């Protein structure tokens, strides 16, 4: 029974009945927060303030101050939810969070930070006054990135505006800087891809939005690898963005709208919903939290959908991926970059490595500081270009230090970010999705 209303956090006075707390126990009431935000209470109260999250937090490791650390943010969110601090005073430090969830991996006490930060952002967004520039920027992001067609058009437009980028507000400038000069040719995906050989399963593929515009080769590779392993692949026609990008910046309404569309677009007679982008996969797995407090029927639908979501590597590992026999294996060294939304959010670290190591002649290399974010983090490199740049350069340095021929990763955001920041290297890094290397094995 939650009865936290009765606790006071006042200094102990000798005359009053004392109440003490050793953890981050809070005055927050789940009832008051309502079902949509009730999940925030548990992570706050589970934190014991031990600080084990500090070294792997990308903002703490670059900025070095408590309010930019996970335990500091938890404290700030707690105080704000209790009404002791004003949301607008705290927002800058919450905004700085990349949502990489490295803190969840390093937390011995099991604090589910992800279940706090996303709802908190949505909670504070409700009353937040944003500047015009911010509004334009967020609008531009939410209305272009999730839509491949618009994204293409916007990219072309951005190319035109690149020369004036430095005269624009920082975030807009970053958007232009990061926008690709050229995009690959559009490659629409067929709706049905039959299994090759004996059919072992049937899955639906989330095509993704930005990824499909930036690197359509990834989904093509995934489809080839799946079908050659006896899996029938459906690419639902009416699918759209999964809403993860919106969810992670607190735009819960946009996120739910996107998700609802996909609930309808995806068929039921499938074993799994495959994601080839870590950010999308982790977002979709969180649908239960996103729809908490909604109509029970919709909530059930969301939970059902989320339970089917699986990352491509996780799935291939489960069905027992076998690369084709090859006579002359070419030796190759690959550094694996852990995407935060795969490693931290979905706790997937071993399956991509296992898959890569099954490739004959491949030597897997591990970069230093695997747990620290590359700075891409959804739209972070647009909203916080300075930190994102510092993190990007740090990541590239660690990857280059491995001396690997190729970098493999499981997320389009990381892929773009690392490629972008390695441009200044004498030998820019070649970054691919893990599934592309698997796909190559089937090439003649």
């Amino acid at each position, binding site marked *: 029974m939650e009865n936290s209303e009765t606790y006071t956090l006042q200094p102990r006075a000798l005359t009053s009945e004392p109440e003490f707390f050793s953890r981050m126990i809070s005055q927050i009431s789940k009832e008051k927060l309502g079902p949509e935000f009730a999940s925030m209470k548990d992570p706050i109260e589970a934190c014991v303030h*031990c600080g084990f999250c500090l070294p792997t937090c990308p903002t703490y490791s670059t900025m070095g101050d408590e309010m930019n650390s996970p335990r500091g943010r938890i404290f700030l969110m707690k105080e704000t939810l209790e009404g002791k601090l004003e949301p607008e005073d705290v927002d800058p430090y919450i905004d700085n969070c990349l949502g990489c969830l490295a803190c969840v991996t390093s937390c011995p006490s099991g604090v589910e930070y992800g279940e706090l930060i996303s709802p908190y952002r949505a909670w504070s967004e409700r009353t937040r006054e944003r500047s015009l520039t911010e509004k334009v920027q967020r609008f531009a992001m939410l209305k272009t990135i999730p839509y491949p067609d618009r994204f293409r058009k916007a990219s072309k437009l951005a190319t035109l505006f690149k020369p004036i980028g430095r005269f624009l507000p920082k975030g807009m400038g970053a958007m232009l800087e990061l926008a690709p000069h050229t995009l690959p040719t559009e490659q629409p995906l067929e709706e049905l891809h039959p299994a090759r050989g004996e059919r072992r399963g049937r899955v639906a593929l989330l095509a993704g939005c930005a990824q499909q515009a930036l690197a359509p080769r990834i989904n093509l590779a995934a489809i080839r690898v799946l079908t050659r392993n006896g899996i029938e692949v459906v690419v639902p026609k009416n699918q759209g963005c999964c809403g993860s990008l919106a969810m992670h910046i607190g735009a819960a309404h946009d996120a739910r709208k996107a998700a609802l569309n996909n609930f309808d677009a995806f068929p039921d007679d499938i074993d799994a919903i495959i994601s080839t982008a870590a950010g999308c996969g982790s977002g979709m797995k969180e649908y239960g939290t996103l729809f908490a407090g909604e109509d029970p029927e919709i909530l059930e639908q969301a939970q059902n959908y989320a339970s089917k979501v699986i990352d491509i590597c996780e799935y291939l590992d489960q069905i027992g991926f076998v690369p084709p026999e090859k006579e002359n294996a070419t030796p190759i060294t690959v550094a694996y970059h852990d995407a935060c939304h795969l490693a931290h959010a979905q706790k997937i670290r071993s399956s991509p490595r296992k898959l890569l190591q099954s490739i004959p002649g491949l030597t897997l290399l591990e970069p230093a500081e695997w747990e620290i974010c590359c700075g891409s983090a959804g739209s972070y490199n647009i909203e916080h270009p300075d930190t994102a740049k510092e993190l990007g350069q740090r990541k590239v340095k660690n990857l280059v230090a491995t001396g690997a021929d190729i970098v493999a990763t499981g997320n389009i955001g990381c892929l773009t970010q690392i490629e972008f920041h390695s441009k200044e290297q004498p030998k820019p890094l070649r970054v691919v999705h893990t599934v592309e290397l698997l796909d190559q094995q089937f090439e003649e």
Partner: protein
Amino acid sequence: MSDFIAQLREIYPSERLYEDDARITPYVSDGLTVFRAKPAAVVMPVCNDEVVKTLALCHAHDIPFVARGSGTSLSGGSMPIEEGLVISLNQLNQILELDPDNRTARVQPGVINTGISVAAASHGLYFAPDPSSQTVCTIGGNLAFNSGGAHCLKYGMTSNHILGIKVALPDGEVVELGNDSLENTGPDCVGLFVGSEGLMGIALEIQVRLLPKPESYRTILASYDSLETAGDAVATVVASGILPGAMEIMDALAIEAAEAAVSAGYPDDAAALLLVELDGEAAAVEAEFAALTSAIETTGAKEVRAAQDENERMLIWKGRKSAFSAVGRLSPDYIVQDGVVPRSKLGEALKAISELSADAGLRVANVFHAGDGNLHPLILFDAKQPDGLEKAEALAGKILRLCLRLGGSITGEHGVGVEKLKYMPDMFSDTDLEAFRRIRRSIDTKEISNRGKMLPGKEAPALSDLGPHPLEKAGIISRM
């Protein structure tokens, strides 16, 4: 105060001087969240000169200050002083010099403990002190509290690995203690400064000793049917004449928590686990391993396992080092104690603790440095019960007094901080404490450096009975 703040603004730009609630709030407590106190401001110096100027200013205005690293103290050692200043040393985080031939490194106080070993690794060297929070805690904090760790048994505490310190005294005078040698002339002032809990000013530069990385390790896990048997096994191993690098014990609750946190692969049916690690030259370690195995055979272990490779070894340690925080999974409210007992009385102490725990109706998890007799009972309680914390504190007090009765100490490595202040008179006479105070005042006439920690300062007397903390009574600190 406003004059003081105005002068701080002349030293620090606003992005390194926090005066607003949003930036101050995350600093109100450290690893001991039972207590919190709100400072007037937080500053983040980036050079020695700023530190020195800040101390001189504090001295002139009689403003108490606390130096802070990663804020992982379990005794409230880096808790702020109400209306005082927090000097955050996190930006002073450079390894200034690494000298492999002399096996030393000169570092700034904000360097993370493991950062030194990482930097020294390419020379085959490492920094031996390994508190469980070593991936987080700073060397400045280790120094102030003479941090221990699992390997103290053989290698000693932080103090044994600090050779020299450049110190800014609380009035701003900068002095040099020690040197860059293992030996010293005159009194061991470095030894006095280390573990002085921040009462003697701020270490600006620290000369640490590095050791060659052991060639080989052997780590074994032995499981027992009772905690007491495991405790007695420690005495057997110690008496056998082998000197392990580390000897640790975890009880069933701690095993459960650590297993949930990191899946360390510990046996799940054990009432207690004894972890023993040997290190050194391969040939020597193998010979010791044989002797250790035969010693363990006589202790009635249910199962004995040896780590098969470095990964298994690291996993065993990861579980052990996560245990404190992992206990948060069993009960988010707990107090960690740090008493020491003579090693031959471990079994007796553990039995007494379990009896006290049963009497109090509170669960106690045990995970500790058995080789040193350094207990870490984690008293689990429910803060939502009106007398939850009081009951837990009463039990903690009984355990500490038990340690003293058995001839031990109230703290092995976490320090006195604010948390054990009231037990100091149980361990030291008035004459002893007065000598401590005289030493303190010779260094810090105004008693501004980390006021209210280790020694009851001029603002509040220590109480020897249970009840509200003296600072709490004075309204200086409050609980979360």
